[in-house]
């Protein structure tokens, strides 16, 4: 077996050095009653050439957005990942290393983390960032736990317009911890209903979570939300970003009253990957640094006084603080973080902005094309690269029709929002052409 270097001869020699007569001897500490007495119920080993063909077969049984323009967003946006990224990720020095526990032989990884933290803090208008969390959903949940540590309250107000899956993970993470998760409805404009929000406030509210843009693609007026929170025992305001590219065009949440930003940075150079691995993150103000979950990289010097980087503030973490840690996370999304760092360095401030403008423009074009066919937005608030519309037929049916025209249609809003039956969420990134938008408008406009 090509992954197992030990030859029969090696095994014999090693057993000799150990003083054992067989490998079975070495397993004697496993009590008989705990031993498996039969072979594993798994197929036989498959040779490499045959197995590769099997995956090609599996692959062609799927249909990727390469062949079909993709109007699906809903937390996963079809962006292009420049070619250098994957080839750099595959450098064995990055790819087959682990968490930089020994900083002297992991400065490559550490410097990249430091760069990532710096860029994410800058993009979100915050002071500090962690080195990644699993994904946008768990980052949102971790933000709640973090806010509780800071504020002590146990109620979280979450806008109903936050990504449904994020809200669900938030509930899973907090359900057994005595938290109250209360949803705040949205208005006609798709934005959080400020009246309802104010009404829901209490001294126990540690965090208010608002999507930015929210699940409907609508950009919230964070400043107004922040203003409505003023008062004693003011909760933290958390902006949930599931389309990180929007950060290029929006005044950063940190400058609009948010105390923390949590979310998903997959748009920065990662493939759609059927949902994972993605790239969760939290950024926040300096004051809350020590309550951040996840790894942090900090600058220091070596014995010769040269700049270097280490994992720092590790007393927040489970391996030191155990049950009192700020999170249980250990393995994070290191390589995804590296991809995002390479992506952001490649795009630069101008490239990222140009790309974001293009996303905005495509979505506005699609909006217009649909309007011309009588299909209008569900909400009046401004949107970035995604928006909700009301379809004349069941969105599932509409998607079938789109698929027949080789288009991946939108997200059926009734799945998360029964009150929005007939609503459909459509995203338009730089990868859908004008022609594809026109084709989609024709398909959807022709239904009834």
């Amino acid at each position: 077996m090509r992954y197992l270097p030990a030859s029969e001869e090696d095994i014999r020699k090693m057993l000799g050095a150990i003083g054992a007569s067989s490998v079975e001897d070495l397993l004697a500490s496993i009590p008989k009653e705990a031993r498996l007495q039969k072979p594993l119920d798994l197929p036989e080993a498959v040779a490499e050439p045959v197995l590769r063909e099997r995956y090609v077969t599996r692959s062609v049984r799927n249909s990727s957005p390469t062949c079909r323009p993709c109007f699906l967003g809903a937390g996963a946006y079809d962006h292009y990942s420049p070619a250098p990224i994957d080839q750099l990720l595959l450098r064995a020095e990055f790819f087959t290393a682990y968490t930089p526990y020994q900083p002297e032989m992991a400065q490559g990884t550490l410097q990249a983390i430091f760069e990532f933290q710096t860029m994410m803090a800058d993009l979100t208008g915050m002071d500090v960032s962690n080195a990644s969390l699993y994904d946008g959903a768990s980052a949102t949940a971790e933000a709640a736990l973090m806010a509780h540590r800071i504020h002590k309250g146990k109620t979280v107000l979450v806008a109903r317009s936050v990504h449904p899956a994020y809200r669900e993970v938030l509930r899973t993470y907090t359900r057994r911890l005595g938290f109250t998760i209360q949803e705040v409805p949205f208005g006609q404009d798709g934005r959080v209903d400020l009246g309802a929000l104010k009404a829901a406030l209490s001294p126990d509210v540690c965090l208010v979570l608002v999507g930015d843009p929210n699940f409907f693609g609508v950009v919230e007026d964070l400043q107004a939300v922040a203003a409505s929170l003023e008062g004693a025992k003011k909760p933290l305001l958390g902006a949930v970003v599931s389309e990180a590219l929007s950060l290029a065009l929006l005044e950063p949440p940190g400058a609009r009253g948010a105390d923390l930003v949590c979310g998903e940075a997959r748009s920065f150079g990662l493939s759609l990957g059927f949902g994972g691995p993605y790239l969760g993150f939290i950024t926040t103000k300096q004051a809350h640094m020590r309550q951040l979950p996840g790894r942090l990289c900090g600058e220091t010097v070596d014995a010769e006084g040269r700049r270097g980087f280490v994992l720092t503030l590790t007393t927040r973490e489970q391996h030191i603080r155990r049950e009192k840690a700020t999170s249980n996370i250990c393995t994070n999304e290191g390589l995804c973080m590296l991809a995002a760092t390479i992506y952001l360095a490649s795009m630069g401030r101008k490239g990222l902005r140009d790309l974001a403008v293009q996303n905005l423009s495509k979505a506005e074009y699609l909006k217009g094309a649909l309007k011309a066919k009588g299909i209008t937005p569900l909400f009046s608030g401004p949107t970035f690269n995604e928006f909700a519309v009301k379809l004349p037929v069941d969105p599932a049916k509409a998607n079938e029709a789109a698929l027949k025209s080789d288009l991946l249609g939108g997200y059926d809003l009734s799945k998360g929002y029964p009150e929005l039956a007939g609503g459909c969420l459509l995203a338009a990134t730089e990868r859908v052409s004008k022609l594809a938008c026109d084709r989609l408008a024709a398909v959807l406009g022709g239904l009834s």
Partner: protein
Amino acid sequence: MSRIEEKLLFEKDHPGRVGASVPPCDVPEVSPEAAFGALARKAPLTRLPEMSEVDVVRHFTRLSTYNYAVDMGLYPLGSCTMKYNPKLNEEVARLEGIARLHPMQPESTVQGALELMDTLQKALCAISGMDACSLQPSAGAQGEFTGVQLIRAYLESQGDARKIILIPDSAHGTNPASAHFSGYAVEEVKSAADGCIDLEALKARMGPDVAGIMLTVPNTLGIFEKNIVEICKVIHAGGGQVYVDGANLNAMMGLARPGDWGADVMHINLHKTFTTPHGGGGPGAGPVACKSHLEPFLPRPVIVKRDGRYAWDCDRPRSIGKVHGFFGNFLILVRALCYIETMGGEGLKKSSELAVLNANYIRARLKDDLPLGFDGPTLHEVVFCDKGLPNGITTMDLAKRLIDYGFHPPTVYFPLIVHGAIMIEPTETEPVEELDRFVNAVKAILKEAAEDPELVKSAPHTAYRRRLDDVAAARNPKLTYKP
């Protein structure tokens, strides 16, 4: 040809350079000001550097040369199972119809992906002896959290609101943390002199307040929990549930299965046992496998097969809910299945046997040089302690000096119950020559420690950086670049 000193990205920011190409826009351009009014960005993006593609490629290529990695040699981090990452896995994970699927595509367009996930779930059940599996957790710790949630949901469904989880003192920090975030109080169980759990003490402690126990098997000393079957019985008899931390599954594939012992739920680290790359810290995947009584509580949605077609079932009223925004770290799952299919059942068993052989070989070759943390027989890893290191040399010194010899150091100072622990897990993918090279390096360092202790204390000498000052970093944290 020493390593090139590469500055930070922000120090290389060179306005006017372009590192990627944005296609021309084929629709009328909309300005952010027009779209967003006052919400449009005014703040400059100070820290997004402008660089050309060659600048970017060189930056990260140079950074990479400061790292050590499995593809360069032994990386014996105990508890981390730093196996060789097969290259075939990388090829298949990059196929267009695998890498580029949108998670919300119609089921009819992702049958290959769903079949793949279903096949992996079944394989993990076969390996663990469990009945059902969820692939959602993103890593081991999230798997633990998910598993403990299953226990809690199950017990509560039985009207049983126990509040305590027992965890041995040798456990990894994620275990108490995961139990804590599930709302349980953690009670530490002291290890006996043989490194195992004291069965009688456990029997005495088990009671109606205990929801269950989290056990790592073999434990973090590499020792198989000798009374595991009995322990399961004791916990079950007391009304509790048994969680197994599968981080050390690499010691026992095809040899022993938690499901057979009576364990109720476990997580499996695909980035350890199943060769998916560690990626400088992740991403991994930590699927959870459980017995059928816990299945109704698994994260939703779950894969079902209806009329020969795969589908997502979201209608799972007793589910603990989702733990991932979508379905888990799919591209990691692909790699793990590719590995399992490469090995087959026999191959996996052989892997575990050889992992045990390799660890015991190191143990045998070093046992006269370094004292063991605990004496009993060990499986896939071995833990030494720092007792008797001469001239004030610490475990950390030894570790740093190994860097000069071209090795990644072992895990150090864990498990906490071993003084100055040196925890070595070679894995089965290491050839014996590499083990010998490592053993000889340790012996040489011990000689240096006796004869020239300063050399060891001031190590490393040949890495890109000399020893780095952690204390200064933590005292005055600089987490972002400031010019």
